[in-house]
């Protein structure tokens, strides 16, 4: 007893003079996050992050923590938050399984260039490499799916790493950053230094594009006979929607967005051709294929956009604007690479335009537009509606009608995602939140929740399939716990619809493991979580359920039974070129 007291006194004696100046690693972490403007962090506690959670509880009035029900859900929420706001999303998970569960979310953010900072707990420094309880090589596992990652070696470098990590995540081509913090570092004391100037000599994100190349680009654009703007997520990251609108209107240019670019250009605008690619519109794919000049901005010529590369836009010259030099000429050779930020590059183009250029181009493009309109008349986006069964396309159109195209909608991956892209019609940027590159089922609902927590008063909808919803449906607890108004629309065909479609078309209808019999009653599931559940099974019930569900406060799950074996068309079969579309 005595000796313990003596030890305590001795300990206090050593610590006392430092306490005025020094903070624990956990305190430094929280202070730095606050200093950098972080207001929300999504996470799940565990042994290695106990010190951090202790600190979070003390600071809950300044830094909101949202408890997910699975680390994957928490990281998707952080991504939804980031996509809706444009600010980095923050997630916090423990070591071992906490980190491995977070990997799907991290990889998703990496593929879609979303700014995230994911803080992972790690076993104490002395135990690293000893196969300790809940130890995993988080740095090794996340290296190929992060923009950068850090193992924090002492509390003294923590503030700088957090500051630098946030900067890296949200500059240049954005992406996820992992900060792995050993447990003992969060207890170690160190000085909290002032905010530092970040020194990253090897990191020079491109800003303004080369002015000579801009001049060349303008010259090519005004001389082109069949130009087209192919725009993607980079326009949204750069906040360049206004510039895109001005540029396309000034030059009367057709615009086709990618899946990641949905909303960067208003879909109802007369210059919009709708999405291109595997399930893009006939006229957008024809226009790209017949174009003589593709102005690609913030896109990466993904295989779901180009179809067979050797058949892609054979007559086109390509101007490629991208902030990431390694995206340029990776899949399709660019004749004129313009490495730079999409917003600055388009501003530079607008500055170089003269009024004569605009006038002459508008006239010259009249036959090009006539051709595009012919394609549009030849194969418009249509489907056969029914009075017996709810068509998924009709569901998307109804959703547009009821929200005016202004909702934030997050989706999973599959048929519902493609129908929404075709038939919803987003008005503006940061409304469409989807898993594009990784194609992760289970993304939509937690991502919607993250967006809703960023914008509590906006209409936020998770538009998901019955398969994907079941991958992260446990986050209903999170949605209810934090009193959100998140709405879930389950497009329920009782199938893994896109896989079923491929099995129907390419495997002679040999349906293998795509039936979803055994799914729960989604209305009862919602009720079990304390949410509201509604169901529509007939077309005449649809608008009532949607209207009622969307206008209620609180979490509402709308289970919409749709025609089971509907296919997404148009479709480019695997290995085919963009012109080889199957229309129905």
């Amino acid at each position: 007893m005595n000796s313990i007291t003596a030890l305590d006194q001795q300990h206090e004696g050593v610590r006392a003079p430092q306490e005025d100046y020094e903070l624990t690693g956990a305190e430094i972490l929280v202070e730095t996050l606050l200093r950098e403007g972080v207001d929300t962090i999504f996470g799940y506690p565990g042994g290695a992050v106990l010190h951090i959670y202790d600190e979070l509880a003390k600071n809950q009035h300044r830094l909101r923590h949202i408890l997910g029900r699975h680390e994957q859900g928490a990281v998707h929420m952080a991504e939804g938050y980031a996509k809706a706001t444009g600010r980095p999303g923050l997630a916090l998970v423990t070591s071992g399984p906490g980190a491995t569960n977070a990997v799907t979310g991290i990889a998703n953010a990496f593929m879609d260039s979303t700014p995230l900072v994911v803080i992972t707990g790690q076993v104490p420094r002395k135990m690293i490499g000893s196969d300790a309880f809940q130890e995993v090589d988080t740095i090794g596992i996340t290296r190929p799916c992060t923009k950068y990652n850090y193992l924090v070696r002492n509390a003294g470098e923590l503030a700088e790493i957090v500051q630098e990590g946030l900067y890296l995540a949200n500059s240049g081509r954005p992406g996820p950053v992992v900060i792995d913090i050993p447990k003992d570092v969060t207890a170690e004391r160190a000085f909290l230094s002032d905010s530092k100037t970040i020194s990253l000599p090897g990191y020079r994100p491109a800003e303004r594009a080369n002015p000579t190349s801009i001049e060349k680009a303008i010259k090519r654009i005004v001389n082109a006979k069949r130009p087209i703007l192919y725009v993607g997520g980079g326009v949204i990251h750069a906040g360049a929607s206004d510039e895109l609108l001005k540029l396309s209107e000034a030059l009367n240019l057709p615009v086709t967005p990618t899946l990641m670019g949905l909303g960067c250009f208003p879909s109802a605008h007369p210059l919009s051709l709708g999405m291109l690619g595997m399930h893009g519109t006939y006229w957008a794919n024809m226009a790209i294929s017949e174009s003589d000049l593709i102005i690609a901005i913030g896109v990466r010529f993904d295989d779901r956009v180009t179809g067979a590369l050797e058949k892609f836009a054979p007559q086109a010259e390509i101007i490629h604007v991208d902030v990431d030099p390694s995206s340029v000429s990776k899949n399709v050779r660019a004749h004129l690479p313009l490495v730079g930020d999409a917003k600055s590059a388009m501003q530079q183009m607008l500055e170089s335009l003269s009024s004569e250029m605009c006038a002459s181009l508008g006239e010259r493009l009249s036959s090009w537009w006539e051709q595009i309109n012919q394609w549009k008349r030849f194969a418009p986006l249509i489907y056969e509606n029914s009075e017996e069964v709810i068509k998924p396309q009709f569901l998307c159109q109804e959703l547009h009608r009821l929200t005016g195209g202004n909702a934030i909608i997050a989706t999973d991956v599959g048929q519902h995602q493609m129908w929404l892209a075709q038939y919803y019609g987003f008005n503006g940027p940061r409304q469409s939140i989807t898993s594009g590159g990784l194609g992760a089922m289970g993304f939509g609902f937690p991502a919607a929740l993250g967006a809703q927590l960023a914008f509590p008063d906006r209409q936020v909808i998770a538009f998901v399939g019955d398969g994907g919803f079941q991958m992260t449906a446990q986050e209903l607890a999170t949605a209810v716990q934090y009193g959100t108004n998140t709405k879930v629309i389950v497009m329920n065909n009782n199938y893994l619809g896109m896989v079923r479609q491929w099995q129907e078309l390419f495997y002679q209808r040999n349906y293998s493991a795509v039936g979803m019999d055994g799914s729960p009653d989604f209305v009862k599931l919602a009720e079990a979580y304390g949410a509201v559940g509604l169901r529509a099974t007939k077309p005449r019930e649809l608008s009532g359920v949607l209207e009622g569900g969307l206008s209620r406060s609180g979490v509402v799950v709308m289970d919409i039974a749709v025609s089971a074996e509907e296919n997404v068309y148009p479709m480019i079969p695997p290995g085919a070129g963009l012109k080889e579309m199957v229309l129905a």
Partner: protein
Amino acid sequence: MRHTLAILLENRFGELARIVGLFSARGYNIESLTVAETLEPEISRVTLVTSGDEKTIEQIVKQLEKQIRVLSVTDLTLNDHIEREMALLHVESKSGNKRLEIMKLASIFDARVIDASEDTVTLEAMAERNKFDDLLRLLQPFGIREIARSGTLAIGRVSTRTP
């Protein structure tokens, strides 16, 4: 085509793994790789020999340059440069004659004998790649018991002043 890249990167924990991981993840080939500090201990120099068509090499260089801690990437193959490889090898020499023959051969290639046992000679050889391959081919008949190669080291040539 074979390309020799000189990569300067910040000498930090885990950075080399990032370079190597990039090559395996994207299916690029590493023929050889050497790494050591430069005059500034906080900067490492990696000499990496890879191969691929023009498009692949362009992507490799861009992907390397994209790495946060990579300071510069130079494709030495594009310009006049010098390459060397070093090796230590034990060569079988069961008889005195063999030992003499090996030593003669070694001197032609500027290789040095640095150790010997009853039945081996240990050589230190340093040469450019083609010459090095020749030496190995000529030593093969004696029996090379073990070899440790450094991989290619390379440096760009500084052009001489015109008189």
